[in-house]
């Protein structure tokens, strides 16, 4: 938190927040949770059209596929944790986005993993590459959600670092949509899943700062051990609980832990909550209230249910051998009150947690576009250089480690222009992700546009009509004027490209402070796109027989 923000909190509260309150505010006012540096600009993006059932604002967006089918889609980054612990960081990144999809009421049916690394010549980069892929594979495979595509790129500017983005889609019928907010008081808040430990304490603040050179040695609290076993049980238990129709609100615990999930669930429509923090099952001895409230332990969900339905719902959790506890309740008054035993340890106006003023940083344009010198080499050599670049070669080493067939829907598998999943006997959903930081670095506006255009082109290449977009904006510190400028330009590029196709962004994510040892990454917008394709119209890129004509369109 910045000093002016602390001052503002004191003024609004009329007193100094105590230790617990301060920790909770710090989490909620972090860049990662509040989007304070990006919110203003994200408003520029188009978010509505006839395909959109639910745009940005909740855990994931919802798109209409046909009258009976809705697709939930979201994208997340897990860059900082993956850079210090690639296996656990990448795996828990998958877990997080899968729960985001789940908590809208949908069964997660596919993942994409756009991932980026430094050059493979260096040992540390190879280590990051190998273990990020293993982390994604082990988690996605074990929870039975196929990873059907992604991107793998290597770039100088990511030396010692990694960008791990994961997009996920889920399938449901439109009336199954559940919201993340409550609309009545007196509901019980039920916490389900893993016990709470000290892992991930300050995770969001960690993700809101640059990494130092020795990040590996830093506090382990920012990384978590993935538990796909519990996640899979959570998926099945949640979907079964939702079938009862008695879940009033649902949210996963991600960044900001219990504080973020419960305060947003209660506060969004003006209600309040009382939380009994000491009831939370603890994994480590002697945890205090502050630790319990802001821990980011993985594989936990928060349900809101009426008292009379508690039994029916929790029986389902017990069937799946998941631990649960009533951790609090919603109240009429818009306050956020936390008890530890009999002691009231926090009492804040609930709006204070969520209502974070925007920050507008100084923005400075830069221009590095110049004519590129063409190297004096033969066409043959040029071809070999291009085709042997790690950025161009087949990414089979990566996607063979992913179960891309589980759930029995994958019509077009990895290795093609876009993946296609069978949704019903006639239609499929095409899903693809693209980003091009080298273009973005040269010209952030056009780079962003090209990411959208490439994604759309890939959809069209398999025969699909584009439906919707999500975006993930990976940037260095917004406090650098050039970075902030490139961020704004990127959004304008994303906006204009989407408008040109009449497409909308239904969800997204912003990750700032991606720099290690004071070296900012290139602006890296990643776009994932959805399309609808008639199964019998699917096209693939391989030549089908001898004697076919080859042509180029659009030069």
């Amino acid at each position, binding site marked *: 938190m910045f000093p002016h923000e602390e001052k503002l909190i004191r003024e609004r509260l009329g007193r100094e927040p105590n230790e617990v309150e301060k920790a909770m505010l710090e989490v909620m006012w972090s860049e990662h949770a509040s989007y304070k540096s990006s919110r203003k600009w994200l408003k520029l993006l188009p978010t509505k059209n006839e395909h959109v059932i639910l745009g940005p604002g909740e855990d994931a967006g919802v798109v209409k596929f046909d009258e009976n089918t809705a697709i939930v889609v979201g994208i997340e980054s897990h860059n900082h944790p993956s850079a*210090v*612990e690639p*296996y*656990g960081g990448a795996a828990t990144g998958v877990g997080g986005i899968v729960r985001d999809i789940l908590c809208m009421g949908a069964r997660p049916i596919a993942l994409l993993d756009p991932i980026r690394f430094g050059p493979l010549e260096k*040992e540390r980069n190879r*280590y990051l590459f190998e273990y990020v892929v293993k982390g994604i594979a082990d988690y996605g495979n074990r929870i039975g959600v196929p990873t059907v595509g992604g991107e793998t790129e290597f770039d100088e500017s990511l030396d010692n670092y990694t960008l791990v983005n994961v997009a996920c889609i889920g399938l449901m019928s439109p009336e199954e949509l559940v919201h993340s907010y409550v609309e009545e008081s007196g509901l019980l808040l039920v916490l389900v899943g*893993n*016990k709470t*430990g*000290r*892992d991930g304490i300050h995770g969001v603040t960690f993700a809101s700062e640059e990494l130092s050179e020795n990040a*590996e*040695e*830093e506090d*382990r609290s920012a*990384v*978590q*051990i*993935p*538990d796909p*076993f*519990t996640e899979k049980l959570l998926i099945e238990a949640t979907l079964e609980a939702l079938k009862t129709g008695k879940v009033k609100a649902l949210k996963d615990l991600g960044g900001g832990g219990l504080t973020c999930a419960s305060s947003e669930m209660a506060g969004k429509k003006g209600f309040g909550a009382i939380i009994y923090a000491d009831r939370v099952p603890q*994994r*480590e001895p002697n945890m205090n209230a502050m630790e319990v409230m802001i821990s980011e*332990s*993985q594989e936990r969900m928060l349900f809101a249910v009426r008292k009379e339905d508690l039994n029916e719902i929790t029986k389902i959790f017990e069937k799946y051998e998941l631990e649960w506890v009533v951790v609090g309740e919603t109240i009429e008054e818009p306050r956020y009150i936390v008890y530890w035993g009999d002691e009231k340890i926090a009492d804040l106006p609930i709006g204070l947690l969520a209502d974070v003023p925007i920050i507008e940083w100084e923005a400075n344009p830069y221009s590095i576009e110049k004519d590129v010198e063409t190297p004096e080499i033969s066409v043959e050599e040029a071809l070999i250089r291009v085709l042997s670049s790690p950025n161009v070669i087949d990414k089979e080493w990566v996607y063979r480690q992913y179960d891309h067939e589980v759930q029995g829907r994958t019509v077009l598998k990895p290795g093609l222009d876009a993946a296609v999943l069978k949704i019903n006997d006639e239609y499929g959903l095409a899903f693809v992700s693209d980003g091009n930081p080298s273009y973005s670095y040269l010209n952030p506006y056009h780079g962003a546009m090209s990411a959208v255009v490439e994604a759309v082109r890939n959809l069209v290449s398999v025969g699909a009509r584009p439906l919707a977009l999500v975006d993930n904006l990976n940037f260095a510190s917004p406090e650098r004027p050039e970075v902030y400028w490139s961020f704004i330009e990127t959004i304008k590029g994303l906006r204009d490209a989407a408008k040109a196709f009449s497409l909308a962004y239904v969800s997204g994510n912003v990750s700032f402070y991606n720099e290690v040892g004071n070296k900012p990454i290139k602006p890296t917008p990643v776009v994932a796109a959805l399309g609808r394709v008639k199964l019998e119209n699917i096209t693939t890129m391989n030549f089908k027989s001898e004697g076919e004509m080859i042509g180029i369109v659009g030069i």
Partner: protein
Amino acid sequence: MKWKARIIVRLKEGLNDPEGRVIGKALKNLGYKIDELKVPKYFEVVFESDEPEKEVEEMCKRLLANPVIHTYEYEIESLGE
């Protein structure tokens, strides 16, 4: 000189350990009174070196363990020439 190192890599105290928990529970279901079960990683390495301590330390740091989440310990035994 040849050496044999026995290296144990453990999760740091307090971290979630789903693997240990699940296997421990499986033993409980078979009727045993298990208080705790852990599955540290265990390596037996036969190698040649003039500086065995230094090299084993390095192997742990560079590959076998991640200092962010692991602690490690080892014993080194000489196997002669």
